[in-house]
């Protein structure tokens, strides 16, 4: 394997990192603006998008030529599974970049903001490719550090406070995770997932306790990224305090990254369904899923702030995806693709919801849900998109969220475990609970009388992104087959043949 091959294997990540460097340099070289004539952010946006296009193109190249396999002594792999998440991350980053142009105009740290978005996307792409504990840790921490800074990027009080909260809980989670890695390494003698897999396949019953301890601790690190109970504590506060565009990025990209690496570690490293410990981690994810759904949904019931509500909603949705992980462990063939399909639709849904909240709240000057009264009259398009996304989060047809939940639940039942049927029963009851707060919000927007009658609309780029999100929510709700197939194909590459 020559140098080019190595570069080629991590091409998308390199493109994103280089892009970040270019954006930062351009930011330094560009003339400073003054109070009358603030500096335009347009060149930076263009450069950011260019980097994303290059990375996306590179990923497409991989997808078309079918290059796959390990590189860097097996520390990373390039496969369809990684590509699925790389595409998801690039799309998310591009959408957030475009949608936040208006917001970023008033930002001091424009260059840093765009560069950090690119670094976050790049490190998460690397994370999706990670096949070695060390690399996974480095990629995960890079992501985390970038996100701490992003949350505090406006340097306002709330934002900085949220950044600190995020940092502290993140540091604890990372500490637990590395402790878990130590257990895994100590037990199996390997840091590469293939090595761990080989050890687990042998089924050494004496290793059960340390292995179990190891993966419970590792889940702390991933669960933090996913905002899954019991590692969810930061979500409501950070969602409320952080800058909304950053949070919209965090809410989908971070979750996708967390689930990507969890899938790979547990499926590849711990051997999916059928090893002597798979039952243990199936039950662990089942418990976490139930706890997440209950905590998230019950917490969301009493929220009055739109962002805080979305924070709790994000916890609850992590529970839904975790059911998919439990199904993976229990040996359902639909488990991995269920997780991936759910995340794919979740990107469109949650980004749409956040963008709409961003655009509406900017105009009405409040994030309180009661101030959303009558938005449907004042801005039918924005309220319409938000309504659609909330319906999708609830899981009401014909939106993508409905099919996604159906697919994950079906995958869980297919695993053929009675207790998973019980978990699904709890999940569907939670859907009914969540309908209460999602639809109350819809009702406030549609039903109540607005405080003032003036109409408004979002800026051009924002409208384009909202339109795309709405289109995605409806398209994947009516024609889900292409995305399901893509998830299926990607999931198939996950199971690496053992030596």
């Amino acid at each position, binding site marked *: 394997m020559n140098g080019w091959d190595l570069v080629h294997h991590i091409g998308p990540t390199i493109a994103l990192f280089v892009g970040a460097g270019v954006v930062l340099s351009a930011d330094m070289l560009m003339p400073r603006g003054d109070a009358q004539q603030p500096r335009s952010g347009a060149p930076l946006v263009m450069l950011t998008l260019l980097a994303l296009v290059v990375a996306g193109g590179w990923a497409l190249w991989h997808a078309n030529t079918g290059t796959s396999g390990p590189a860097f002594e097996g520390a990373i792999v390039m496969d369809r599974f990684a590509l699925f998440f790389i595409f998801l991350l690039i799309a998310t980053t591009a959408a957030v970049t475009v949608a936040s142009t208006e917001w970023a105009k008033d930002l001091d740290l424009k260059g840093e903001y765009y560069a950090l978005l690119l670094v976050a996307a790049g490190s998460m792409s690397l994370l999706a490719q990670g096949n070695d504990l060390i690399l996974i840790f480095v990629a995960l921490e890079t992501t985390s550090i970038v996100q701490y800074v992003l949350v505090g990027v406006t340097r306002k009080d709330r934002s900085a406070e949220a950044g600190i909260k995020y940092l502290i809980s993140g540091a604890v989670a990372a500490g637990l995770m590395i402790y878990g890695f130590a257990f895994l390494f100590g037990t199996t003698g390997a840091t590469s997932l293939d090595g761990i897999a080989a050890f687990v396949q042998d089924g050494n019953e004496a290793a059960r306790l340390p292995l179990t301890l190891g993966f419970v601790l590792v889940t702390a690190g991933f669960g933090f990224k996913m905002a899954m109970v019991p590692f969810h504590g930061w979500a409501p506060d950070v969602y409320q305090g952080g800058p909304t565009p950053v949070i919209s990025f965090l809410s989908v990209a971070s979750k996708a990254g967390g689930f990507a690496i969890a899938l790979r570690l547990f499926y590849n490293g711990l051997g999916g369904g059928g090893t002597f410990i798979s039952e243990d981690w199936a039950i662990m994810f089942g418990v976490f899923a139930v706890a997440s759904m209950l905590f998230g949904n019950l917490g969301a019931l009493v929220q009055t702030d739109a962002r805080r509500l979305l924070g709790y909603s994000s916890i609850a949705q992590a529970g839904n995806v975790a059911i998919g992980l439990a199904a993976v462990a229990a040996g359902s063939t*639909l488990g991995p693709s269920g997780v991936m399909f759910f995340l794919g639709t979740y990107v469109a849904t949650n980004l749409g919801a956040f963008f709409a909240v961003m655009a509406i709240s900017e105009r009405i000057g409040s994030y309180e849900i009661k101030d959303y009264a009558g938005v449907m009259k004042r801005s039918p398009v924005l309220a319409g998109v938000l309504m659609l996304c909330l319906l999708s989060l609830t899981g*009401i047809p014909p939106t993508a969220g409905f099919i996604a939940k159906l697919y994950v639940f079906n995958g869980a039942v297919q695993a*053929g*475990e009675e207790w998973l049927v019980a978990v699904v029963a709890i999940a569907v009851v939670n859907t009914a609970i969540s309908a209460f707060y999602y639809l109350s919000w819809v009702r406030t927007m*549609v039903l109540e009388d607005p405080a003032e009658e003036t109409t408004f609309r979002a800026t051009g780029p924002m409208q384009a992104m909202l339109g795309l999100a709405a289109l995605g929510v409806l398209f994947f709700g009516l024609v889900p087959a292409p995305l*399901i197939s893509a998830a299926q194909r990607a999931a198939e590459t996950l199971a690496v043949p053992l030596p």
Partner: protein
Amino acid sequence: MPTLFLFLPAVGALLSLMLPRHREGDARWIALIFSTLAFAVSIVIFIWFDPDQAGYQMIDQFTWINPGRGAFEVQYVVGIDGLSAPLVLLLGLLSVVAVLVSFSVEVRVKEYFAYLLLLETAVAGVFLSLDLIQFFLFWELELLPMYMLISLWGTGRNRYSAMKFLIYTLAGSAFMLVGFLVLGLAGGTFEIAVLTEAPPQDALVPLSLVFWAIMLAFLVKLPVFPFHTWLPDAHTDAPTAVSVMLAGVLLKMGGYGILRIVLPILPDQAHDFRVILAVIAGFSVIYGAVITLQQRDLKRLVAYSSVSHMGYVLLGIAALGSLGLSGAALQMFTHGTITGLLFVMVGLVYERTHTREISEMSGLMHRMPLIGTVMLIAGLASLGLPGLSGFVAELTTFLGAFDAHPAATIAGIFGVVLAAGYILWTVERVFHGPPDEKWAHLTDANRWWEYAAMGSLVIAIVAVGIFPSLLTESIESGIEPIARIFEASA
């Protein structure tokens, strides 16, 4: 053909939404045109339907979700049999009536009619779907329009009622989904026809649990005691057209679901639990009737009478014989027309008096003889007067259920006595008695859409009462395969 019926209203809903603000009123006409077209299609379906031919007819089918590699395949498959044909006809008819009685809606006209048409599509989907997942999709699709219609255009505690409706239905359907997924795993498919051919004998969780999980959704929807409390609230606070749809077709989704899915796919469990179902049914009939007697609000009164009448449906089903099942299916149709008409009349009275308090009304017959007369016809049909459609259905149900569940059937017959009580007493209090001076200014039904709405339903009620064979032929052909399952096992 069924696909056309399914999507015509949805197209109408989209068109209505696309109207510019200043021509909003035209939504009424769009809705009328599309619901009438759909009604015409439903008549064609009913006429084309051949009762002598076994199995489903006019099937439209393609694979909707086909990701390949053995993953989660969902069919789009719609078809007609003797069970769904009358309900499709009923839906077509009541949708036109619902649009007609909504002509006086003035607030957010285009959204109103869009939701009303979307509701028709959703219910049509439930009646036509022959795949469990597709069935569930339409079952859930019905929630949003109902929620919006009640909470936006309703009166009184409409928000509370809308949310209550939503939560009850969602909680019920939640378990239904689990049941469907387990059945799908056990049977290897979600297609109803295939599952009916070879009912799963064993599943991941005990089939009796699956039975109750699915049954719960249908019992909530029907509704029967103790899952009925959402119904009076939803009815009372909903606009007239929505009450018509709710009583007329939405409640039938429950009975239809039991007949279409539960009985054929889980026959042994249905047989095991038939006594429990009969007890619930008998109790519901009496309980509903007793509560109805105490109502002071005209609309609530009709709503509670529905609880009582839907008890007959469950009673007929619990008999698990061809006569009882036919009675239940027939009762679903006749209750749809009769209670639909009752709600139309209550709506017309309310529009004029602006009160539903029975005690405030008196001698309205003098002011509105036509409304009073039609109300009386509907009432008589509701209490089962021979010659009107209610009689045929109730008689068939009782005949079919008596052998299997004598006690519950006697309770049911006692319910008819109570029904005579509350109906006649109500008509007497509202329409007879000394004319009240404060109602002197009221007018009788005088607009064309009011005539059309009343007329079409009266014709349906009288026609089925005199020529029950219009429906029974179709219903018997739909019931026959289900009844055969139970005769074979008995």
